[in-house]
């Protein structure tokens, strides 16, 4: 089984260590990993801003970059959702779009549903963890149980969080266009957060928003990308 990792623009620059941990995880479960060099951005920023032409150019670029990939795995539910849900419609005249969409997975979704991971390790034993559902992982990809299952397999106690399925307020450009509302949304998440060792999520965007807001408020637990949390679970 061969996976092409799509680090995503945010992952490459801001969650590089988590992307490297994703490579380690995939190799650990017996998957061969490659990283196509032409990859850059999935096009979601342009798409969400209403720049359809620019979004389509990024779709074409990404289709070229991952031509011939068996599976594409992303450490991001949002970018994976963009590819799975919107590529086929945006590039309806390019038959590669629907095919790539079907072969694209968010990391935890791939580990559980394709790689069939049974056990990882016990490195998170005794850790209390809050899991934030990225909206696009949850609602576009239907990824709800997979990350929690994997965390539990590593020994973590995933604690209930009343706002775990509510949006963190990131929303890409939304966070900068309407910063006050966006921050109030993050506050709602942080204000309801139980006492935990760390907060984790499938998406760097959400983590950047929550950790950036927590730091500004000078309070809050550590925030870690799911790939890094799971790799710690393996490594111990």
């Amino acid at each position, binding site marked *: 089984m061969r996976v092409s990792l799509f680090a995503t623009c945010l992952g490459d620059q801001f969650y590089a260590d988590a*992307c490297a941990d994703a490579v380690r995880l995939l190799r650990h479960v017996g998957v061969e990993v490659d990283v196509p060099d032409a990859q850059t951005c999935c096009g979601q920023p342009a798409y969400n801003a*209403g720049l359809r032409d620019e979004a389509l150019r990024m779709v074409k670029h990404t289709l070229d970059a991952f031509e011939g990939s068996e599976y594409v795995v992303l450490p991001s539910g949002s970018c994976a959702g963009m590819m799975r849900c919107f590529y086929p419609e945006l590039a309806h005249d390019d038959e590669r779009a629907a095919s790539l969409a079907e072969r694209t997975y968010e990391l935890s979704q791939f580990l559980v549903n394709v790689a069939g991971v049974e056990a990882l390790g016990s490195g998170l034993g005794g850790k209390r963890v809050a899991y934030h559902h990225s909206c696009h992982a949850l609602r576009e990809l239907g990824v709800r149980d997979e990350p929690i299952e994997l965390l539990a397999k590593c020994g973590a106690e995933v604690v209930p969080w009343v706002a775990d399925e509510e949006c963190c307020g*990131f929303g890409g*450009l939304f966070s900068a266009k309407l910063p*006050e*509302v966006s921050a*109030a949304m993050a506050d*709602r998440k942080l204000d309801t957060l139980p006492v935990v060792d760390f907060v984790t999520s499938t998406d760097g965007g959400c983590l950047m928003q929550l950790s950036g807001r927590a730091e500004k408020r000078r309070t809050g637990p550590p925030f870690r990308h799911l790939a890094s949390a799971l790799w710690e679970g393996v490594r111990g």
Partner: protein
Amino acid sequence: MKLRPPGEYRAEAARTIRETPGIRDAVTNATDTFNAHRAHAYGEIDSDRWRDWARDVKTHVLTHLDEYLVQAEEQLTANGAKVHWAETASDALAILGDIVQEHGIERTVKAKSMLTEELGVNEHLEGLGVHVRETDLGEYILQLLDEPPSHIVGPSIHRSLEDSQRLFHERFGTPLDSEPDALAAAAREALRADFLAADLGISGGNFLAAETGTIALIENEGNIRLSTSLPRVHVAMVGIEKLVPRLEDLSGFLQLTARAATGQPIGCFVSLIQGPKRDDEVDGPEEVHVILVDNGRTKLLADDTAWEALRCVRCGACLNICPVYRQTGGHPYGWTYSGPIGAILAPGMLGLEESLPLPHASSLCGACVDVCPVRIPIPEILVHWREKAVEAGLTPFVEDIGLKAYTAAAEQPMAFRAAGAMLRHLPLELGGRALPILGGWMQERSAPKPSKKSFMNQWKDGIE
């Protein structure tokens, strides 16, 4: 209090968050309750199947609107009601004004109706010297406070119990610690005199069954029943999108709407109105007028994507679940319809330029899609309006140029990574606030922390 226009959304939202945090608490608490009740009520039925059905019926109506409108008019007329057509708000108000004049109306009682808010009925009637009394408890509170509704179903949702206790204490002398029931009793006492004195009752209409010319009204307080049956004249103002084909369709819609709105199996009162009282009936108005209102609806219907928003049954479920709406309530949206549904209706009904930035007042989280009883694809329509704004050249210059430059760079992996490396080494924490986009981020959050070494470089050097 007048609403500030949608263009003031950001400033109004920020002001609400900073200066009146009680609004956020009141709205969050009330919508939490709505959401819990809706989830329970959806769980009792095969809600996916019901919602598919409701979507299909509404889509059918909207694609055959001309036929059903004519049928509804014929049936209502045959029932003895008088049907009027209003293309614009001022047409509707003029028709209402004529009825008021013809009957020498001095006092009117109003059932809760968002359409009458949209049209500005109260201000118009007061301008004509007519006394107007809102009879829904929430609307009554807002009328006393001189505020517009902030939620489709719970108009005073942004107000706490303490606010109402204080208001009623000042107004009626009720104790400051009165229970909600005692406040409702005080309001009922005051309203009863208004009901008895009114010679006109004004309502909206939740649904209009074309087959029989039946207007259906859902409520929990009984004030709609009284407003539409006690005064000698009843005027129902109904949006043209409120049609359903058959009387039996009401059965499904009345139940689904109540479940979506408040989590009830059905409203405490359902009124089905077909016309004035008949010769052998004791109760009921002598005249019933139905004003069918367009006011931007056919314009919205003509849009090949956004037309689906016209399926809306005004349950408010998308407001309750929306994490954006929940921070501020409805007033910052600057229009009668707030929240996600307001943000997609406004560009089609008011005009795109007038409605910006409402289509951007969403993180596109999609929570609204999970709850909408008629399956309106709200995030898709939000993106659609953003695309229309780009086409019309209404996007802020920096954003437009920035995203185009970003796309051009992202087509050149080498250049893209070089730009990324450069940005990562800028002293963001020091200078970031002065930059466009990043400045908005840093106003409320710490600067993003770049990784020490990019992933692509880690990959090239080998990952152990």
